[in-house]
């Protein structure tokens, strides 16, 4: 009940933020422009359109999560509005969970809006709209779940600018974790301890690349097949586990924090 109330208020607060609309406008613009990029190509225009659309949705959803999420808790502390909430019978974990869910709803609404525009545009342009695309969009949402949790984690411990920088770095490195292992393998002979450190980094960092099935989705669209549900299930479970872990870590910091 308390969590729900905080979540709804967070959502209302987020939709009043102008940056959300700016990002949405750019996202839609990029989806529309994808058609023009396809035009100049000799063949493969539908594939290019789908690629650009999916990537636009991913990048703009990530930006919404980072730019709105990183300021959420800090703003409450800075404006002292957190006292009015915590003075009521609300636990700190409920506040944190409410903030997270509110931001997640915002991200979901943003994702649904962009996805609807994208799929509608594909349909209007005569490009195939398949289940595989929906699967890719669903995993993008799970990825945003993790990114939002990381944004909340940093927001509960640091200033918005630092939080945005840290979350962006993790968002980017999370896409490239598999190369961290490859990098370790290349120095295995000369510095075996570096390899171990890099492998630990690989395990510790969120492997956001897991949620990137955009290439497979485009291929599956061409061949009109679905992506295996077992693969999807593993990714979703990984996302849920990592989100819970990050939120718990955020709570660990937030519960001891003095305002």
């Amino acid at each position: 009940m308390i969590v729900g109330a905080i979540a709804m208020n967070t959502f209302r607060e987020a939709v009043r933020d102008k940056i959300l609309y700016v990002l949405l406008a750019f996202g839609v613009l990029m989806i529309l422009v994808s058609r023009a990029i396809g035009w100049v190509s000799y063949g493969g225009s539908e594939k290019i359109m789908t690629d650009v659309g999916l990537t636009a949705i991913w990048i703009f959803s990530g930006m919404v999560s980072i730019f709105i999420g990183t300021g959420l808790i800090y703003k409450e502390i800075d404006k002292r509005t957190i006292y009015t909430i915590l003075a009521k019978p609300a636990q700190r974990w409920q506040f944190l969970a409410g903030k997270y869910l509110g931001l997640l709803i915002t991200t979901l609404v943003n994702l649904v809006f962009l996805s609807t525009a994208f799929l509608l545009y594909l349909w209007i342009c005569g490009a195939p709209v398949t289940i595989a695309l929906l699967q890719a969009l669903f995993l993008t949402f799970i990825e945003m779940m993790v990114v939002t949790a990381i944004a909340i984690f940093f927001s509960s411990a640091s200033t918005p600018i630092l939080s945005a920088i840290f979350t962006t770095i993790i968002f980017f490195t999370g896409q490239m974790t598999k190369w961290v292992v490859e990098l370790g393998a290349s120095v295995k002979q000369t510095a075996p301890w570096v390899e171990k450190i890099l492998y630990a980094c690989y395990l510790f960092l969120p492997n956001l690349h897991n949620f990137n099935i955009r290439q497979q989705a485009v291929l599956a669209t061409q061949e009109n097949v679905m992506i295996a549900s077992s693969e999807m299930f593993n990714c979703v479970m990984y996302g849920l586990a990592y989100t819970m872990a990050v939120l718990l870590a955020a709570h660990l910091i937030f519960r001891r924090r003095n305002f």
Partner: protein
Amino acid sequence: MQGITDPTTLEFLERQQRADFWNNAAQWGYTAWYIGFAFAVLLLLLYVIIPSESYDEVLRPRGFLGRFSRFRASIMHFGAVLLLVLCAITQQTQVDQTRGFAADQDKRYEAEIKKLTATGNREAAMKAQYMYLPNGNSLLYISLGNPSIAADYMWLTSQQYVVNSQRRGQKFEMLLRFYNTVMELDPHWTEAAINGGKVLSALEPNRYAVEKFYSGAIFDNPGNIDLPYEAGRLFVVPPLNLELRKEYAKHATDWFSLVIDLLNKRPQSKERDSRIKGVRDLIGRMAVETDAYGLAAELLWDDMHDQNVSKALRQMYARDWLNARSLLIASALQKRVDEYRASHFFAPLHLGSIIQSLKSEKNLFLDFDHETPKDAFGFAIKYDPRTGKVASHGVQAKLAIQAAAIVNSIIATTYMQYNSGAPPKDLVELQQFVDKFFSIQGNEPTSAITNAIGMELNVIVSPFGTPWKYNATTGKVETPPECNPKTLFRNADLLVPDN
């Protein structure tokens, strides 16, 4: 070019007017710049001389300039901004002078590459072009693990490269690398592989390099039918070098056979069967080139009797079958003659004993009933005991039709054009012209020409081995009566009658 230099032309006047306009603009630009500079200096000077307060300590006005003290800060800001803008303009002009306008930079880059290419330093020219071509791995990092979008970028860049290279009149050395990078990033983007292969096949003279590109894509997409089909089609067009014809046909047949295998694994459907039919037809035609006359005849026989295809097409198959079967007969006989010669050290005087030995073989396409064998066209097989060469007269006649058409076309469209509309007086004169004309760079003979009259471009001797009968009045070589298609293919009409 004449229009640009000739002062009486409209083009020259237009160019002159444009040049005058820009000269005037440049003059005005300099004047404006100096006026602006003077104004900025004046403003800064005013800032120095205008007192900061209008009144002194005892509230006495500080003269005329004192009235403007409240504008002092604004004057300074305006003057400083103006000065900085003028500085920026000066710097930009300097940059433009050294680098040229942004639009000219690409042209300069092209000119630089052209210059490098002209020096013959191929490696330096390639290096200059490669400089802006990232490899697949780096694109993967830059795109944050989104290889699909990186492949799209590479694909679009490759098209830009083709257009630019075409404009520069250069070759397309890097094109293969572009496409390989696209496939490295998105190995299952078969549409790009097919389209890339088509572009390559048109621009890259080395068929085997293009085939290698297709092979890579086929390895990554083993179930795809279009890729081996396109790889086979690479070799359907006959090469300029006729020595490679057999090899080309072999490559084409191998790829098409793979297509048939893949199609056979698919569930039966009308579309599948029709596609198998089309590919089998191609194999049938290619098999003749690879000396697999038996296979060609077998496939064409089936096609000829397929009631699902139109009669016109079946008649075409029948004509091809006559050719394949005649070649099969001639080659079987030739093989025996060669064996005979190897054991007896001379060729047989006639084909009687050879025909007897072939009769004992149960070969569907070699069921001779006569002592003097005939080819499928109905002509007696030609045999020369002095050379031991066996030939089908029908096949020679078929070749003669093509060769005569080519020779006549050379006379009408090329020779007469260079000889004020007059035909050559004899074929020796034509031969001299042909040798000279096709040796000029840019006039290389097409594959249709080399296929018909051979690599040596012989316009004197016909495929029958005898000189052409040439009519100097009409400027045409004449073929014997059996080269009339109606006569030559009469057996095809019997196999697939008109009604």
